[in-house]
């Protein structure tokens, strides 16, 4: 008599999980399997040929361009991660501990999302009249006499690329860190104060460790977004820098699907390794 409701409960659980499993299976697992399969196929100028060859991987892994591109993509990811982390942590800290009322916290938080009200592409393009040779910044600097030649490095450079990434992705850092900070028991901060800890000591020994899950989640967002980007890098570097995803998109354009698939599988593995390393440092689930 007891077994039936339990079995019934098991069925209900499976039913509850089913929609998510179906969606993930159809739109995540299946495409990845397909990409992996195609990455072993052969191709010609105008057709892809089912086969089992390692040539695509050999070409990806033997090419110096691959390593140079990965290096530059990783460099962009690291720079963006470091800057967004500092910015995101500061903003979240200010929102969580310096703004007193919930009403203002929410208001200021919404203000942080304003850049997301316009499309990604428009946000990037609007940097051009701002940073360009005849742009606002250069005109201002020239008219105040600070510089005599327009600063060329402001646009179509690594600087502008990182700037755009930071502009686009800082919010992805702010949100999870803010979320973690809001869960910190206020009495812990007070206790630290009672023990004569300075504000800096409180941040380092209390707030930072307790915000680790937020930092980890934000880092995963930022790093995976930068690793997979091919639009920002092209527009902001003026097409003069490459990224791994841009390499894949070029291969797709030349009908080299299997080569692109092999490249995508390698990128997926690299990103998964990075994410795994982050999860190793911070157990997100335990600390949530």
């Amino acid at each position, binding site marked *: 008599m007891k077994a039936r409701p339990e079995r019934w409960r098991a069925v209900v659980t499976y039913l509850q999980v089913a929609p998510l499993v179906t969606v993930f299976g159809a739109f995540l697992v299946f495409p990845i399997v397909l990409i992996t399969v195609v990455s072993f196929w052969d191709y010609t100028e*105008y057709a892809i040929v089912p086969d089992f060859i390692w040539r695509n991987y050999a070409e990806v892994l033997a090419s110096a*361009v691959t390593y140079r591109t990965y290096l530059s993509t990783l460099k962009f990811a690291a720079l963006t991660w470091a800057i967004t982390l500092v910015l995101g942590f500061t903003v979240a800290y200010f929102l969580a501990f310096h703004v007193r009322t919930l009403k203002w916290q929410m208001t200021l938080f919404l203000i942080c999302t304003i850049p997301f009200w316009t499309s990604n592409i428009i946000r990037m393009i609007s940097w051009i009249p701002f940073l360009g040779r005849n742009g606002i910044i250069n005109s201002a600097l020239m008219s105040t006499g600070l510089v005599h030649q327009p600063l060329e490095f402001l646009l179509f450079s690594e600087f502008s690329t990182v700037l755009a990434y930071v502009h686009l992705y800082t919010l992805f850092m702010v949100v999870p860190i803010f979320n973690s900070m809001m869960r910190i028991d206020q009495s812990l901060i007070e206790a630290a104060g009672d023990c004569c800890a300075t504000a800096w000591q409180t941040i380092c020994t209390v707030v930072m460790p307790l915000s680790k899950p937020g930092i980890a989640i934000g880092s995963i967002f930022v790093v995976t977004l930068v690793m997979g980007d091919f639009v920002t890098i092209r527009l902001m570097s003026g097409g003069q820098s490459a990224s791994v995803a841009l390499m894949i998109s*070029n291969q797709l354009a030349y009908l080299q699907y299997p080569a692109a698939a092999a490249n995508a599988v390698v990128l997926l593995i690299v990103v998964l390794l990075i994410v795994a390393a982050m999860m190793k440092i911070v157990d997100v689930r335990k600390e949530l």
Partner: protein
Amino acid sequence: MARRDRQSGQRRGGTGLSRRKMLKGAAALAGVAAGWGAIRGFPLIWAQNIKNVTLRQFGTGVSNINEIAAKAKEDLGITLEMAALDSDAVVQRAVTQPRSFDVIDSEYWMLAKIVPSGNLQPMDTEKIKLFDKIVPIFTKGELAGKPIASQGTAPFKVSYLSGPESKEFSKMPTRWFTLVPTIYNADTLGIRPDLVGKIDSWKELLNPKFKGKASILNISSIGIMDAAMVCESMGEVKYGDKGNMTKEEIDKTMKVLTEAKKAGQFRAFWKTFDESVNLMTSGEVVIQSMWSPAVTAVRSKGVPCEYVALKEGYRAWAAGLGLSKALSGLERDAAYEYINWYLSGWVGAFLNRQGYYSAVLETAKANMTADEWGYWMEGKPAQSDIKDPFGKVMEKAGAVRDGGAFETRMGAVACWNAVMDENRYMVQKWNEFVAA
């Protein structure tokens, strides 16, 4: 849906064939009448039976001009479903999805990839009424009696097929044609004359005077040819055929370009039309490889821009309409009718007014004013303001077209857009250059 039903109906029904034959006859008769009207510039009667047919067309060039679809609907009753794609996507779709289109608007260089796939149906030149009037660049490989440059994928080399089922190009004229030309042009460098001054050679693109202010287009198959024009004029590299380079020639070209890139010669690379316009109007770039309508777009924003005639000549390109392998029956008749209509003058005038060239010049001329014809085609100063097809003033009275008359510009073509035998190697080297 209706379209598919009709097709299957014909296939199933025994009377389908005879009905189709009858329709063909009717179309031919009507076409003759239409052809006569067209030459006089007033296409009045077109075949009636092709009304309500829908043709799916996709491509790069003329496929994003909705006015042409609207006019075709008005004159022929045909509905054109147009889709504009970038060049890589056109090749991709033509090769992988032959059933997804009826008419393709393809560039000639793409044919080297599309024709071997067997997805293109050879066109019967006898059904093209004005075939003899098509500019001989395409039909004979010459212009005004002089042979046209054959470096790269010159249209003449890929215009004819050896038979009605063929996947092989024929060197000599045959009855079977790949594409009926729609638009073509001669490309060169665009400059800001106010910031650059006078130049007369492709080598100026890498002149250190313009360091940090130059740009080249980042579509490898076209960019490499612009690069080759530059390297050749600098005397750095000698080419057998710029449109079909050897590995060694590719290496040398990319070496020159990579050194220039590392020295900071380029401000940016561009991939789309808008990017090239923005780079020029914002003053980020003062000299770059450019497309003709982009020059017009820069000028229409009040920024001076010149499409300079250079002594080494132009890099030319051409596009045309072809038929899908899957096309048959009434739809095929409609497609032929559409192509005949295309050559009959209205479209030609429309395209000429945008600064392109059209396939049959005399019918286009009949649809343009003498002043328009003089400005666009004969290199004469405009008598009054020159307007684009949408009525916007493009040039003030007195202006002369950059590079001059049709025969001067097209006669000075040095090479054609192409796909090389070493394409894969070239793409790889180009990607290295971008990542360098």
